[in-house]
């Protein structure tokens, strides 16, 4: 197939060796690229049971066949490995320009193995690969480190880096690029830090071959005009994900005070209108047609974002309505290389523990100076931060408060209250990397549309499967989530244009199912079963008090019913396990 470079760059950090090898095209035909193909490589190459922070773990930067073409929204890079937060497979999707640089350097993927003997960074420019000393960078925030490297090499280069959180092996550590884009969840920054790898600097000056380039580029431009750039997608240019805040507030799924309730009467103090009054500039990722990035300047704080997740966790969920504090928290977390969701959820859990008198963590709801200080302490594992860096699962196992430790498999909850969207509790429970909203975005069907009622288990298994299948394909093509109208037919057409092989919508759907299954197979091999597809007891025991979902809590039997529906759709057994016959197809 065209569209690929048919070339993998494999880096042995222990030996400081770089080799290239052909892409496994037989795998690419089944898993395409990015999410799916990186999980396949890890499934085949990682031994079960390895310590995610050991040199045995691998970190894969994987592009897709559309990367580097004129397909809009195709500039994302998958970063995948075994998660130190959960022990599951974990793939992230990072924006910016690094995906294009890797592809133009001539590689479909970079596979990082082993561990450097001391802090270093990797330099990649086409076929020139060098291992550089990072003594001057180590300990610095991700922003300062990136700035130093851009200063040294120039703006043609893309930098993928970790902050102090990655260096201290904090399992909430993310990987940054373009300063404010993250591979956020699951501790991929800690995996990179465990390899003593501070950064990867990359540039590429080659290109990407696709068949019938003139006709393809013309057709891609038509698709962009007719579909990508319609208003259903371009709303993100106007406000980024701040637009979600009002919808979640009105829809009754904006969480408040560590998910103890929903809706916030003060939401207009930090909503998109307020935040965007401080707009300084906008940007998009490589090949982007939508430009969702908003740069804000509030006081002395400059920050891209905050996105909806970061607004919610540092806003109503923390008992805060000060927009400056929300923006500052985002900026600090990004510089420290911390997942805003996991770090924020841990701090707000600690707030509730303190408020309830279960354990005094020295921070209460609304205390944002402390929230921001705690982000730094968590990243550097200093003082109280050394404890909080454990995350809500381990902390609650140690101190109590498990009922309101909002997590699944050790990954903290994104900012959509499931009692207002029951299918979301299922989506969080069965997501391949722990509680994640980017596998099956249930509110789009249950809350933001009239398709299916939110407060019932009926039909939720199929709904979550359909959403997860769609996203699994999209993220294996490495297309951005914000191209929301992209369907299987269009994805098939884009794949056909880029590769020269005929793909159909049915092929795309099959890939999506296969990707869900291989991720589950990885986790199954690590010992995960239905008992790990959980929901915090808060959802079962405490009814919402406000919003359209007032009075709602999820009956535990309804939650278990939704799980069984999902397993059945996929052909898994009652224990959520793939049968041998299905494993053999992967």
């Amino acid at each position, binding site marked *: 197939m065209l569209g690929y470079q048919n070339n993998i760059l494999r880096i042995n950090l222990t030996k400081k060796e770089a080799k290239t090898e052909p892409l496994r095209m037989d795998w690419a035909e089944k898993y395409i690229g990015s999410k799916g193909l990186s999980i396949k490589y890890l499934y085949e190459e990682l031994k079960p049971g390895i310590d995610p922070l050991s040199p045995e773990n691998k970190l894969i930067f994987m592009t897709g066949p559309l990367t580097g073409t004129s397909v809009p929204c195709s500039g994302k890079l998958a970063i995948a490995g075994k998660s130190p937060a959960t022990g599951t497979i974990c793939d992230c999707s990072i924006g910016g320009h690094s995906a294009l640089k890797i592809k133009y350097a001539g590689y479909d993927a970079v596979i990082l193995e082993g561990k450097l003997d001391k802090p270093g960074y990797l330099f990649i420019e086409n076929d020139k690969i060098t291992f550089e000393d990072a003594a001057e960078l180590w300990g610095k925030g991700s922003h300062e480190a990136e700035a130093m490297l851009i200063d040294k090499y120039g703006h043609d280069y893309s930098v993928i880096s970790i902050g102090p959180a990655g260096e201290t092996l904090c399992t909430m550590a993310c990987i940054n690029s373009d300063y404010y884009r993250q591979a956020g969840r699951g501790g991929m920054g800690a995996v990179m830090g465990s390899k003593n790898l501070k950064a990867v600097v990359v540039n590429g000056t080659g290109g990407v071959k696709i068949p019938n380039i003139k006709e393809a580029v013309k057709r891609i431009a038509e698709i962009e005009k007719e579909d990508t750039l319609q208003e259903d997608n371009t709303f993100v240019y106007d406000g980024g994900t701040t*637009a*979600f805040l009002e*919808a979640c507030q009105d*829809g009754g799924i904006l969480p408040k005070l560590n998910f103890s309730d929903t809706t916030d009467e003060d939401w207009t103090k930090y909503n998109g209108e307020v935040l965007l009054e401080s707009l300084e500039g906008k940007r998009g990722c490589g090949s982007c047609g939508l430009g969702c990035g908003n740069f804000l300047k509030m006081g002395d704080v400059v920050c891209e974002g905050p996105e909806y997740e970061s607004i919610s966790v540092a806003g109503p969920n923390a008992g805060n309505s000060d927009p400056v504090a929300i923006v500052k928290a985002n900026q600090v977390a990004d510089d420290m290389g911390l997942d805003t969701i996991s770090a924020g959820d841990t701090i707000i859990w600690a707030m509730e523990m303190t408020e309830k008198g279960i354990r005094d963590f020295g921070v209460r709801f609304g205390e944002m100076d402390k929230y921001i200080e705690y982000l730094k302490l968590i990243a550097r594992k200093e003082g109280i931060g050394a404890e909080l860096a454990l995350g809500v699962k381990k902390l609650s196992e140690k101190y109590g408060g498990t009922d309101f430790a909002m997590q699944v498999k050790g990954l903290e909850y994104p900012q959509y209250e499931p009692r207002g969207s029951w299918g979301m509790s299922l989506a969080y429970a069965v997501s391949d990397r722990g509680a994640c909203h*980017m596998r099956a975005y249930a509110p789009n069907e249950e809350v*933001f549309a009239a398709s299916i009622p939110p407060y019932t288990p009926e039909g939720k298994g199929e709904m979550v499967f359909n959403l997860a299948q769609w996203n699994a394909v999209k993220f294996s093509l490495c297309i951005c989530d914000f191209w929301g109208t992209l369907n299987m037919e269009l994805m098939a057409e884009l794949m056909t244009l880029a590769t020269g092989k005929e793909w159909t919508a049915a092929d795309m759907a099959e890939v999506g199912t296969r990707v869900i299954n291989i991720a589950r197979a990885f986790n199954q091999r690590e010992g995960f079963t239905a008992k790990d597809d959980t929901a915090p007891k808060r959802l079962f025991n405490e009814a919402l008090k406000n919003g359209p979902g007032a009075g709602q809590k999820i009956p535990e039997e309804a939650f278990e019913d939704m799980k069984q529906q999902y397993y059945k759709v996929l052909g898994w057994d009652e224990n959520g396990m793939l049968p041998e016959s299905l494993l053999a197809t992967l």
Partner: protein
Amino acid sequence: MVITIKLRGSLIKYFNGQREKTIEVPLDCSAEEALKLAGIDWPKIENFGFVAINGKRVMIYDKLQDGDELKAYSKISGG
């Protein structure tokens, strides 16, 4: 009675880029009827999302009262 209709997301195009309009509707008017009076034939809009009255999600057939704010959203994706 008089109500305010606010549009969100891609629905703004139905008010030619304006985000809100105040209109007069009959007593006992539903959200659905009010939208139709404002020129928004919601069943024909593929990406029509949900409606909220006074900041709270409701069913499309729920009734309005004088002075109410009716918000209509398109679907959104992402997170």
